[in-house]
């Protein structure tokens, strides 16, 4: 279960990205919204959703929204989740957001993340406004009825309360060491 609830402040982190640079949450502190998504390479739920993650970033970049994906999986058991493989995936799928490696799994544990993908949306004050899944249909993007993350972003950007602030994350379990 997540260690954060709506209204809590973001937990800072500093992690290496696939661009070989260090990325911290504070790098994005001036943005209108920061979307931290615990993710990985191997999970088919992430693979089903990752094009939508790219599209969300593309659609909202002009509004000051920054997605940040974090992979905390144990690569010894899931070699597809290694850092070199992350770099390949980011290139292949043209990720337009940072893709970070949480090798020690400390950030995932601090956040209480359990699944991939699992979304934490923070507003410009680094306050958690939405936690959960991206939308209601991992299988078919055309059949999505509830665009939870998009709807939460629209509310945050408009200064409105988020009507659905919490959904159950759907995906693979984070692979702990």
């Amino acid at each position, binding site marked *: 279960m997540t260690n954060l609830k709506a209204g809590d402040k973001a937990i800072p982190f500093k992690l290496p990205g696939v661009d070989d640079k260090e990325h911290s949450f504070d790098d994005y502190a001036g943005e209108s919204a920061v979307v931290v998504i615990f993710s990985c390479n*191997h*999970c*088919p*739920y992430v*693979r*089903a959703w990752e094009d939508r993650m790219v599209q969300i970033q593309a659609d909202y970049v002009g509004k000051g929204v920054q997605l940040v994906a974090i992979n905390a999986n144990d690569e010894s*058991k*899931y070699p597809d989740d290694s850092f070199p493989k992350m770099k390949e995936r980011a290139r292949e799928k043209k990720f337009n957001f940072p893709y970070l490696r949480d090798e020690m799994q400390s950030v995932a544990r601090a956040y209480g993340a359990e699944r991939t993908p699992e979304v934490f949306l923070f507003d410009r004050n680094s306050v958690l406004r939405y936690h959960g899944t991206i939308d209601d249909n*991992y*299988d*078919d993007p055309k059949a999505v009825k509830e665009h939870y993350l998009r709807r939460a972003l629209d509310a945050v950007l408009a200064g409105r309360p988020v009507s659905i602030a919490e959904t159950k994350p*759907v*995906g*693979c*379990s984070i692979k702990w060491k």
Partner: protein
Amino acid sequence: MKIRFLYFEDCPSHDEALQRLRRSTEAEGISADVEIVRVETAEDAEKFKFIGSPTITVNGQDIDPPAKPHYALTCRGYRLEDGRISPLPSEAMIRRALREAKTKES
């Protein structure tokens, strides 16, 4: 015809996958029972040659055999007809496998 459905409880797609399998057997007029196997340990994964959840085999043949099988307690992805990856096999994929098995048996 021997149909086996293997799943790992941690992967959330198994209920829907089983429903798709049942709809598919009905649509193909197949009355064979579906053996349901819950895979719980890494040893089970090796024993059952479990590629990931959900897995459907028909007469011992995976409906979507991977090029390099790796047995583990994990979720698996299926490449759908339109090229997307999904945690679920499509009904078209399941029905194709059932029809092929029926043809081989007749």
